[in-house]
């Protein structure tokens, strides 16, 4: 599951699914993990980027920002009945109070059960197996388990 700016994968969890994004920058890793989230529901390649949604969130720690980001996507998917297949993320460094903020755009389309064959809805992102770190190659690896 490779794109130009990194890759995503799932990792096993007995009851649920782990989502992981890997990228040369933190922004890229956050974009990749969002694709991994979509892939829990459907094949991201089947989602046409015809409508954009803007998302902003913040947190006191980068790991918590990851959970907030995924939970915002879960919320947007649920309330707009949409799936997203393309993402552009920008994480701002901490402000004076130590708060990190994220600004993103997500492109997608309304769920079409015939074409998307959605497998399962995601209830929320969890703090289980939550990690934000650099791997030995210097790439960012961000991950957590999502409840389905």
């Amino acid at each position, binding site marked *: 599951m490779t794109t130009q700016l990194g890759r995503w994968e799932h990792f096993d969890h007995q*009851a649920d699914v782990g989502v992981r994004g890997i990228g040369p920058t933190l922004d890229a890793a956050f974009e990749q993990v969002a694709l991994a989230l979509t892939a829990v529901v459907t094949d991201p390649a089947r989602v046409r980027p015809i409508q954009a949604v803007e998302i902003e969130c913040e947190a006191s720690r980068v790991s*918590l920002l990851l959970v907030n980001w995924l939970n915002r996507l879960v*919320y947007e998917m649920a309330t707009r*009945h949409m799936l997203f297949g393309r993402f552009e993320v920008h994480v701002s460094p901490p402000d004076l109070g130590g708060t990190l903020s994220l600004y993103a755009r997500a492109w997608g389309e309304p769920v079409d059960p015939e074409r998307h064959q959605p*497998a*399962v*809805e995601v*209830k*929320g992102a*969890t703090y289980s197996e939550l990690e934000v770190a650099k791997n030995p190659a210097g790439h960012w690896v961000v991950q957590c388990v999502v409840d389905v």
Partner: protein
Amino acid sequence: MDTTRLMQKSEFEWWLEATPPMRVPGILYASEALLREMDDKVLEQMANVASLPGIVQAVYAMPDAHWGYGFPIGGVAAFREDDGVVSAGGVGFDISCGVRTLHTGLTVEDLAPLKADLAQGLFRHVPAGVGSVGKIHLEPDELDAMLQGGAEWAVKRGYGRREDLERIEEHGRMEGARPEMVSEQAKRRQADEMGTLGSGNHYLEVQQVTEVYDPSVADAFGVAVGDVLVSIHSGSRGLGHQVATDYGRRMIEAAHRYGLELADLELACAPIQSEEGQAYLGAMRAAINCALANRQILTHLAREAFAYLLPRADLRLIYDVSHNTAKLETHLVNGQPQRLYVHRKGATRALGPGHPDLPDAFRAVGQPVLIGGTMGTASYILVGTPESEARSFSSSCHGAGRAMSRHQALKQWRGRELVKQLGERGVIVRSPSPRGVAEEAPGAYKDVTAVVDAAHAAGLSRKVARLEPLICIKG
């Protein structure tokens, strides 16, 4: 699981000794075979829960326990009202997810000629699967009334019958709900989701009773071999998931203010007697009402589908149980009654005979304990025992529990083939998602019979009847 870390007290009871910082021991109820299949992380999570302030007696794992978030799924823990904690992670994402079972008044012979039509009728009439939308859209005032009223609200609005309410825990309405503590986002997530089944392991099944183990209790529950039942497994939908997300975050942020060192962020909790603790309890109770209202509406939809094809059918609610809750209950601790917040995460309350909260119909025999299986195996009805009060704060198992991840299941099965194979065995499966069916393959779950046998042998609840699926509507 490495069983050498445990002390075996009897064939189905194993103890994890309380070593600091654990305040109480861990007690697992399971056969050795089931324990061997359990992940070691269950023990780690039990030890973490046993270290939380205000916990009493022990942390318990039911026979279907598996590695969850913070708390094990299939876990039970009770905290003192005055100095204990309440944990959003200890309740879980799908607040008040549960099962209800109805008697249809029909036998297998009555159903046979119309089975395929009924499968189609239910599939078309009950919204299921990702992105499905209910016909009911609630305005803000009405949504708040639903969050206060639960199944009682649903009945007042014409979804079901008054007599349904006495067959639901809390008589269909959880007291102490505070809709104002539920975020606008959580409410918005619910706007289109009332009366939807959901996806994943949620289902609506038409089942036949294939075996009765305890005829006198089965008689009190009104079930006999050959009877056709309907079981609905669903929860509090988007609203409950968002309440769990919102308060998990809030409890993590507040933890340091209360001097709570979290071994795992998923153990996010707050003192019961704190602003955060009380706000969560109010929101969680509102989410319980949302789940009760949702299962009540789903029942109404099932009744409509039956009435159209089988006008003779009369769907009477046997009982409705919730799995993911924290409830204020009185239990005996060292011989003294204490008010405790009992967290059951993936566990069923299982009240024994004579309990004052039981409806008159079950007062003499105990509470029906409804255990959902998978679409290809079986479900069970059990009954609460007098012993479970001392063994597990009157709690029992809740289902089979997964044995295999979704990813592994997808590698092993194809949805369309599974539907065909089950069809050949007489189980009609209808689902909008073949991939969803593959991920929920019966083989991806533990053997529900082994789980139920262990719960029975450990005295957590007693077997009454076995149910096998005829029709399964999957989300």
